[in-house]
């Protein structure tokens, strides 16, 4: 029983007791269950595991603190009405926001931040990390760090464009179908059903092989593949809106369909659509990395996280972290977006719990 273990347990127990004393029920539950777990781990895995847990807790607190302070920062800086919303945002949400902001910055200022060019050969292949190359080099001796920064730009940028396009098409057609109803609705529905019946990955494979894999095609194809899903959602949401009396009133006024869609229906459909946008963004993101995995995604020498994972995948078997970095980057972003989306969903569904 080393001093570390003793200190560790004492702190854990003390914390739990404090929580219990101040009736922080949830905090207590977390802390104490953690204590129990670490007892178990300590017995099974030895002190190493204790250290892991300690690190994990540390990280958790770090993230929590970061999120907390970032939220405060926003509350202080943003205009009042938004700040009011922010103040009640859960920590997860503000953490998500923080991550997203970081990514956006990285994406925009990639050339400034990255010490080397995207395809620039700096050192020998798989050069170990040193102070010129923080994360070492890749198989061609290009700077890993720079490539990850540029990866943010390419991967995120492309995913964003794709999703945006998919939504533009999907939701517009969806709203159109819902507003016009009748045969238009029928036809759209059928077409979408058919499109969705074709397994998307394979469809992507086919289309991309046909039109050739360059960024533009990639965006177009994936957008095409995802728009049906958006259509369905938009159609459903709008379906509930068009039956409202204010839509009837507008119709009776003799308004054009376009007006109905843009200024009567759309404003009421945004909340769910935005939420869906977040989720879809993640899926598109993963889809692109999946395609890169199949060699059809973003093409080298363009840096892209998906293909970076793919290229270095074999390293995982040896417990090397190189491929973990881009993969973690992907996961982190998607988690972050999902956090924010969750929060927005909660806001839009005024469900008080």
């Amino acid at each position, binding site marked *: 029983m080393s001093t570390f273990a003793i200190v560790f347990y004492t702190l854990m127990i003390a914390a739990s007791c404090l929580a219990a004393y101040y009736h922080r029920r949830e905090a207590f539950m977390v802390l104490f269950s953690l204590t129990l777990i670490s007892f178990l781990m300590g017995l099974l895995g030895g002190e190493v595991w204790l250290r892991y847990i300690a690190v994990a807790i540390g990280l958790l607190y770090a993230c929590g603190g970061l999120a907390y302070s970032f939220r405060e920062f926003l509350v202080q800086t943003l205009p009042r009405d938004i700040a009011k919303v922010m103040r009640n945002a859960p920590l997860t949400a503000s953490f998500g926001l923080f991550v997203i902001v970081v990514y956006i910055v990285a994406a925009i200022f990639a050339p400034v931040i990255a010490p080397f060019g995207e395809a620039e*050969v700096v050192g*020998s*292949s*798989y050069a170990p990390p040193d102070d010129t190359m923080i994360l070492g080099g890749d198989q061609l001796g290009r700077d890993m760090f720079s490539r990850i920064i540029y990866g943010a730009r390419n991967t995120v940028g492309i995913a964003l464009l794709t999703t945006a396009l998919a939504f533009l098409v999907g939701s517009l057609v969806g709203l159109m179908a819902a507003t016009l109803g009748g045969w238009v609705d029928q036809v759209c529905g059928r077409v979408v059903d058919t499109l969705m019946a074709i397994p998307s990955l394979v469809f992507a494979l086919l289309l991309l092989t046909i039109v050739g894999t360059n960024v533009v095609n990639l965006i177009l194809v994936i957008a095409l593949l995802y728009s049906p899903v958006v259509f369905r959602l938009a159609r459903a949401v709008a379906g509930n809106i068009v039956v409202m009396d204010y839509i009837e009133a507008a119709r009776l006024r003799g308004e054009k369909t376009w007006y109905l869609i843009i200024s009567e229906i759309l404003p009421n459909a945004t909340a769910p659509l935005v939420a869906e946008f977040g989720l879809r963004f993640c899926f598109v993101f993963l889809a692109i990395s999946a395609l890169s995995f199949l060699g059809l995604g973003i093409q*080298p020498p363009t840096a892209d996280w998906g293909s970076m994972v793919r290229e270095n*995948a*074999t390293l995982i*078997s*040896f417990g*090397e972290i190189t491929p973990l970095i881009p993969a973690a980057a992907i996961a982190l972003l998607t988690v972050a977006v999902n956090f924010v989306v969750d929060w927005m969903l909660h806001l839009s569904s005024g469900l008080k719990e």
Partner: protein
Amino acid sequence: MNTITRHSTTRRRFLQTGAAGAAALTLPMRFAHGAKKGGVMRMGKAHGQTVDSLDPGTHENGFTVAFTFGYNGYLTEIAQDGSLAGQLAERWEASADAATWIFQLRKGATFHDGRDITAEDVVASFNHHRREDSTSAAKPIVAPITDIKADGKHTVIFTLEAGNADFPFVPTDYHLPIMPSKDGKPDWQSGIGAGAYRIRNFDPGVRADLDRYADHWDSGRGHFDAIQMITIVDPAARTNAVITGEVDAIDRVDLKTVHLLKRRKGLTVHSVAGNQHYTFPMRTNIAPFDDNNVRMALKYAINREELVEKILQGFGVAGNDHPIGPGQRFFAKDLEQRTYDPDKAKHYLKQAGLDSLSVDLSVADAAFAGAVDAGVLFGESAKAAGIELNIVREPNDGYWSNVWNKKPFCACYWGGRVVEDQMFSTAYASGAAWNDTAWEHEKFNKLLVEARTELDEAKRREMYTEMQQILRDEGGALIPMFASYVFAASDKLAVPAQMSSDAALDGERWMERWSFA
């Protein structure tokens, strides 16, 4: 050296040749000494597709090649030392002009269904590739055969359009197994062959299971009781499989992690210098490549060492702009190695009357693994010589049909041929279908034909050396590197010290040559 004299077959030396045949087939015996029998060998293969079939004419990838070598018998084979050895053919002799070849079949060799192997089978098997509507990839290889007929049960007579001293090497080609014939047609569908192993189950793109063929004529081949060959395309999965010991060996080791793989206990990473080489063919009938100075400039503008280090992770040697590998008989070892020299490149540009040059280089990883990266690196090094290379990524699909042999400057892969003549006549002889540099060189062509029929060793060496020289200095192909075959095997396996260099995994004949330690 002496192995080679053994192969310059003439009437006078017929007996020797016969002995040669005999000697040839003692080879595997020798290697077989002490080889432990038994065990199930599990091999993880980087190749194999659901569209693979048993038709030898369609065999093209590492999986099918190893497979066919496993269950099929061939007239002749390449021994580990690169020499020629008889298999189903016991002896062979040539007419003086080396245009007629008589093969004597081994008696007592049988197919898996117990039938004797007869001359008819051989004829039918070769005609499978020769016939007019043949779809076989080997069609060009057997094209020179003008006639083939059986003379009795165990004699086959090949007649060639022109003499070819190396003809006995032709039947070693993996496209040309001997298949059981039924009224003149070879029956490849049944999967019955004359190899050391017989097929138990073949699931294209997934796996193949084979059992030792007990009645094989040569008890010195095939030491495993059974073979499991599994397709593992994903390099990571392949690596995992061999690490976790779910397979005993894998080919195509991922070079990125080979340094880590080497550290694993119980595994050995083998690398065999091969004849396979990566090239950047320039079509010499299209400007600017019709000017040899431009070609030379480019040849000097590429950094071969860097490519070997970064693309092959050091598993290979720099090429010298000719397709003959260091391990080959007539390799011109005295030929000076060309190196990266921007100034020379500039000089040649001047000669060509240019001070800068901008050309497209079409690449795709379908050409060879890392072709794109190679292109990128080439581009970087060429800058210094004032040459602007714009790397054009071509789609992998249809690369061989739409890019290679069409685009003026692209990336290409050559598996290499054991026989210099084969290599030259397939890819550099004027009018050859695969002459991807559209190269026409009178002297070269003349030498090629002469060397083919020349039976004197020394003369041939001179000729081939000269041809390599010509290719190096005037040829259309930029040949920066020769890649080694890198594969990993568990230490449970007894991997022979000397392995064939004509293909990966001991010339893909590991099934019959390897055994458990």
